[in-house]
């Protein structure tokens, strides 16, 4: 009965199958608008992540990748495509399905100076390893009085996906964003993906790197500079994706695209929105956010996570603390509904922010500006 298996074992490694997109038969998202001046080439977020991993592994043999299906399967979402062939199974490590186990192993290896990149098939599954991420990784530099640092990257798709129900579809930005000792990055475009992943791998501390499955197949223009292997982006710095003067919209990951789309619609109605791509949730670029709000006097925060104690809540707090007197109108906080993600397509759509929601909220902030103007 097991003879076939034996053969299979023997044949392992001989074939390097090439995969197209799989596990990805999901409803397409509205493609986002982008503005790049020095764009030279189009690149998907998937290729951006893949090339960043590849280059960092080539540059530093302390860097290795581990996780479920990262090797022979080429990654559940094909982010690690080709890496097994290039770096071998010692550096592209297929693990059993044991998040607590392999995450802890990654952390332990990082204590000894290696630079593990731990891939979670999706960030949902990292819940089974949250002890390792928070206790073993995030707190160690502190507990060891700075003697043991943990240069590890935890990465994988985060946030709602399409049609996969309550357990597979939620945003962990706010969860990790509340933990001292973690850095939490949230790329949107291909440039973000490349620059931030490279920065994360080179960083001496644990980084939670939240990708978005719905963005993997999206193409963005990338500059020549961003294609250079030395490229990286600063951790903790937001990017103003679009300048405006009437209202500030903060967003991260997939929601940046929605915010840009909303800004286009608003423009037609005479509202000039400034869109901030947070890029980093922790550290949070309070300076950029506050400077923008001081200019526009209005704020809409957008995220797909649950509303309570969310990223938007933290942004509201920083703006109330630092720029209260500049606000013309109450802050609008756009978030996912406070329910587990429903399966039914119509309910699922209701549960997460849509472009119309951003438009509507931005308009509300602008319409209400007159009566509140006394605050300025």
């Amino acid at each position, binding site marked *: *009965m*097991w003879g*076939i*298996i*034996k*053969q*299979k*074992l023997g*044949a*392992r490694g001989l074939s390097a*199958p090439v*995969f*197209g997109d*799989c*596990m990805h*038969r*999901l*409803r397409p998202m509205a493609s986002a608008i982008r503005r790049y001046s020095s764009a030279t080439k189009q690149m998907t977020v998937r290729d951006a992540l893949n090339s960043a991993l590849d280059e960092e592994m080539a540059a530093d043999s302390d860097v290795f990748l581990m996780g*479920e*299906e990262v090797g*022979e*399967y080429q990654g559940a979402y094909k982010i690690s495509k080709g890496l097994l062939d290039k770096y071998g199974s010692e550096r592209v490590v*297929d*693990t*059993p*399905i*044991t998040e*607590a*186990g392999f995450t802890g192993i990654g952390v332990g290896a990082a204590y000894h100076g290696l630079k593990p990149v731990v891939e979670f098939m999706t960030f949902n*599954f990292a*819940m*089974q390893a949250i002890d390792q991420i928070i206790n073993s990784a995030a707190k160690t530099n502190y507990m060891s009085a700075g003697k043991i640092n943990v240069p590890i990257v935890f990465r994988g798709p985060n946030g709602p*996906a*399409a*049609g*996969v*129900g*309550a*357990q*597979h579809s939620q945003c962990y930005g706010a969860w990790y964003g509340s933990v001292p000792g973690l850095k939490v990055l949230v790329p949107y475009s291909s440039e973000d993906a490349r620059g931030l992943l490279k920065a994360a791998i080179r960083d001496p501390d644990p980084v939670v790197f939240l990708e978005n499955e719905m963005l993997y197949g999206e193409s963005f223009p990338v500059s020549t500079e961003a294609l250079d292997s030395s490229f990286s982006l600063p951790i903790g710095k937001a990017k103003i994706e679009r300048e405006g003067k009437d209202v500030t919209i903060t967003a991260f990951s997939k929601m940046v695209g929605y915010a840009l789309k909303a800004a286009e619609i608003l423009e037609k109605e005479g509202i000039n929105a400034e869109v901030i791509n947070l890029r980093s949730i922790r550290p949070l670029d309070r300076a950029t956010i506050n400077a923008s709000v001081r200019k526009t006097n209005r704020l809409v925060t957008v995220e797909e996570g649950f*509303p*309570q104690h969310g990223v938007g809540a933290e942004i509201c707090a920083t703006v109330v603390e630092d720029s209260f007197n500049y606000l013309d109108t109450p802050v609008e906080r*756009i*978030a996912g*509904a*406070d*329910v*587990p993600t*429903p*399966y*039914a*397509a*119509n*309910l699922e759509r*209701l*549960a*997460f*922010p*849509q472009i119309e*929601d951003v438009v509507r909220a931005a308009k509300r902030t602008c319409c209400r500006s007159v009566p509140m103007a006394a605050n300025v």
Partner: protein
Amino acid sequence: MAFAGAKIIQPSLPLIHTTTRSPDNTLLSDPSFLSSPFLGSTRTLRLTQSISPAQRRSASPVVAVSDVFKEKKLKSNTNLLLTKEEGLQVYEDMILGRAFEDMCAQMYYRGKMFGFVHLYNGQEAVSSGFIKLLKKEDSVVSTYRDHVHALSKGVPARAVMSELFGKKTGCCRGQGGSMHMFSAEHNVLGGFAFIGEGIPVATGAAFASKYRREVLKEADCDHVTLAFFGDGTCNNGQFFECLNMAALWKLPIIFVVENNLWAIGMSHLRSTSDPEIWKKGPAFGMPGVHVDGMDVLKVREVAKEAIGRARRGEGPTLVECETYRFRGHSLADPDELRDPAEKARYAARDPITALKKYLIESKLANEAELKAIEKKIDEVVEDAVEFADESPAPSRSQLLENVFADPRGFGIGPDGSYRCEDPKFTQGTAQV
């Protein structure tokens, strides 16, 4: 120690467990099974220098290891493996499982269902072999590959199909979806999408049965729980944690491993240091059984013993069913890593074809009777699709329901109104 299996596994010796071989041929085609049931077979040890998992595996179908099983089997002198009625019931259930899943594939490609849809084709002997022996009060805990477990447990095809369509008439009103089938009425305690997650939940259900019997003195509470999960899941800590507690507290649970040899694209042999999962039973002090999961009669025999044991309060059993999935991991899996020869080999051992052959050869049923069942099931599945298609989508107001059991939902706000009525708080951006 009651379990022989525990005795023969000595730490430093690489072993092969062999048995009176019920060789490559299946029970279904091997009448000699009747006089030498593998459950009661004797084991011999063989020492070898160093053997690869694959070699170990290829030794023979490995079998039951517990004395409990052995004694029981020797006493038993039944000649018929199942009655005509049982045979037809099991056949119908397997046909239902297969036809339902085939229909799901069609509906998925037509965009009627979405997300991750994991089909059960090929593994029917496990679901039907086990679940058809349960009482309604017994519980089943499943994974994301849960449609057929729910069907076997009696959840109507309409309710499951409708759930997959995301409709209000689904068994979870469209809120759960493919990976999360629940039916309190049928004691289907959930499809759990996370690896290992269902195992402690199932163990908890078994704990509750024991508690009701022993603490609450409900003498008639002899309910058992079946936990279904895959080979890949047996590398997750929750599996080991629960084997320990279930044995420690003698809980009425059967851990049913559906070893289909693959976890998405990860071969079992590439991920597991000792691939013989059943051995982990004795290691924790419970019987471990390895059974041909493509043979529903064998599965049923093992299931009967294990369920009986659990019902009698004699504790848990670990059963490894060697099976195979005939489709990709999910409908989105390109399934490019499994060897076509391996697939063909298992396809030739289709559990439904095998049962059909047995029923006919042993004169338990004739072609016409089986045809009639197939026709009936076709109609059931067609009807389920029609029903699901015509059913209404959940209404918008349903979005905020069922988050809490508390009928006040999110509790009462300072102005006396329900917090769930405060749109800023709960709706996110939804315009309900």
